[in-house]
């Protein structure tokens, strides 16, 4: 046997590691170039600050952070979000926003376009989305990324199907799909992620808002409404949940004065983490003809299935269950209940590697992703408590499973008393005074 043959044989074996590998992601490396140069300079000048660690890697990472995929995100990132709204009726203008909401509710089906730009660190992502909403069939959301040369690439299709109490994600960039079932969670609560004008109007109604008077858009006489209230949480850019709640918001809604239906929505949100999101919803087509087939998920052949992901309801039982599961794997409680970091830790603990899912049978996938969801239980509850202003607190950094009498998590109930989960995961209702004693260092 000569050297050439030997080399050829060894080469063929070792080259097997190239199977499935990817060429460098130029966009990512370009961002890392800047970030690492800043880091280098910071250390040289002694002015180094801890940088935000994660670059929004490629379109996929952006997509997975987005609310449109937050539930698949179930298997990867996620968050469940429930928003309580108080409707204010008066706007001080000729059109009452509540009437706009009523008008939209009367439309059987409608379609519109959404252009989004997300800017974070040095990265920028442009998305072009089409939304089809039917009162009967549900919501179909088609998302494309747009590169600087205006070239569009299919990113993801999402279907919210009320009759099946499920949401289906088809993520083209990763050639995979997931079916998310809601176990006790309200499907209605997920509508906000689609930039549904119903949600936007409700959100504006729930905030202080002003009239912008009348104007003309595309030949249509419109009346404008504006809110700059940072509690605004509507629209597709509820993505702020992932990147920190809005620090600044500027939302304008323009309504056709003759039909009382939206013509254009502009949203500008800056999160506390510095992410900027700009979004315009336009080209509203009201009362379009639809049928069931329009909402039938199209899953290209060969796409990897996540199996069925079951999202637990945000409640006390599921939170305790999740904390117990986490501590049994990690020997401690999560340091915090930030959904992204908990999701990341949980995936590591249960060895959920997206790429290796392909090797598993569907029921095994479901088992694994459901396990992840179960561990996420306390994060879901905490998120809901924050949004409901329930004065929640969590002390996982200092309280462990052996701390029987220490408060691990607590929140305020309707009656003003506090519900407390202790270190040993027992649960009790206490008065505010008792809580104060319990939380003394």
């Amino acid at each position: 046997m000569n050297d050439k043959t030997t080399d050829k044989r060894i080469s063929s074996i070792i080259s097997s590691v190239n199977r499935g590998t990817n060429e460098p992601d130029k966009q990512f490396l370009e961002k890392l170039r800047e970030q690492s140069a800043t880091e280098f300079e910071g250390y040289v000048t002694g002015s180094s600050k801890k940088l935000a660690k994660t670059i929004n890697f490629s379109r996929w990472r952006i997509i997975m952070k987005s609310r449109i995929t937050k539930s698949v995100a179930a298997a990867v990132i996620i968050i469940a979000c429930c928003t309580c709204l108080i409707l204010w009726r008066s706007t001080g203008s000729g059109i009452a926003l509540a009437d706009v909401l009523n008008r939209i509710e009367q439309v059987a089906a409608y379609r519109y376009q959404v252009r989004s730009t997300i800017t974070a660190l040095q990265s920028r992502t442009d998305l072009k989305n089409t939304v089809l909403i039917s009162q009967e069939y549900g919501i179909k959301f088609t998302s494309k990324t747009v590169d600087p040369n205006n070239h569009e690439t299919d990113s993801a299709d999402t279907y919210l199907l009320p009759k099946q109490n499920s949401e289906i994600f088809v993520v083209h960039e990763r050639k995979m799909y997931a079916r998310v079932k809601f176990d006790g969670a309200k499907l209605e609560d997920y509508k906000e992620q689609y930039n549904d004008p119903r949600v936007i109007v409700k959100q504006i109604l729930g905030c202080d808002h002003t009239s912008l008077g009348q104007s003309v858009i595309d030949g249509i006489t419109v009346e404008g409404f504006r809110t700059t209230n940072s509690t605004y949480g509507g629209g597709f850019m509820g993505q702020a949940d992932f990147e920190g709640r809005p620090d600044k918001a500027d939302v304008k809604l323009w309504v056709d004065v003759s039909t009382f239906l939206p013509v254009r929505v502009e949203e500008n949100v800056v999160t506390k983490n510095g992410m900027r999101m700009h979004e315009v919803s336009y080209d509203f087509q009201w009362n379009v003809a639809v049928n069931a087939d329009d909402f039938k998920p199209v899953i290209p052949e060969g796409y990897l299935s996540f199996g069925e992901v079951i999202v637990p309801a945000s409640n006390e039982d599921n939170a305790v269950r999740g904390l117990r599961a986490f501590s049994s794997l990690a020997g401690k409680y999560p340091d915090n209940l930030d959904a992204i970091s908990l999701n990341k830790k949980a995936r590591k603990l249960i060895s959920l590697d997206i790429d290796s899912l392909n090797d598993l049978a569907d029921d095994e996938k479901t088992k694994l992703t459901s396990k992840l969801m179960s561990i996420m239980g306390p994060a879901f509850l905490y998120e809901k408590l924050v949004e409901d202003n329930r004065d929640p607190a969590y002390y996982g950094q200092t309280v462990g499973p052996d701390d029987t009498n220490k408060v691990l998590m607590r929140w305020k109930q309707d009656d003003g008393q506090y519900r407390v989960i202790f270190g040993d995961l027992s649960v009790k209702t206490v008065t505010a005074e008792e809580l104060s004693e319990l939380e003394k260092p």
Partner: protein
Amino acid sequence: MLKRKLYYDQSWDIDVFCCQLRPYMDKNVEKAIARGLQQGSQQAWLQLYEAYAGPVWRNISRLTGGDSAVVADLVQETFLAAARSARNFNAGRGTLWVWLWAIARRQIALYYRKQKPRMPLDQARQWWAGLDGEKFDWIDAKADMPPDILESKELALLVRLALSKLPGDYQTLLLAKYIDSRQAEEIAEQMGRSETAVRSKLTRARKAFRKVFTRLTTQAPKVHGVSI
């Protein structure tokens, strides 16, 4: 024992041989970059980055598989860690590539440590055990490995893990020779070594690979898998 440990932790510190083996960079350019880094020149950092970002990505990708998100995380960790320590780079301890790759290897090792339990590895072992044929003749390059086996993802995983467990210089040498198709002459020239010395090192690297691969495929499956 101590040396062995140091070897794994800081191969660039101990093994001068591997210091010469790297993606091509002109020696004068390398010296200029090293000097620039010590002086805190951002331009030098960017030159280093431009030269090595691609190779680091490719090698990490080969050793961890095709999950781009994982590769991106490891590449990011590598370059941020390098940026923090670049000013202290000591050319006497090795080349820029060896220094940078040592950082990357630590990140890869950390990644593998966190990947447990490793069900896919157990599956790959079972797959290997169930194969008919002169398996170790294939690994010894005494016989051709059947194409369907070469194409299998299980083999890719086993080879990847075996490579990951090798010392950095063997790892880099095998990747350069057998994947990047670098000729021994070219490697020898860059190393300032004789071709014979390179071939000798390659022989040792192959032997080490075979040994690790054999150990990997004959070990009983572990609940918590391998650590690297």
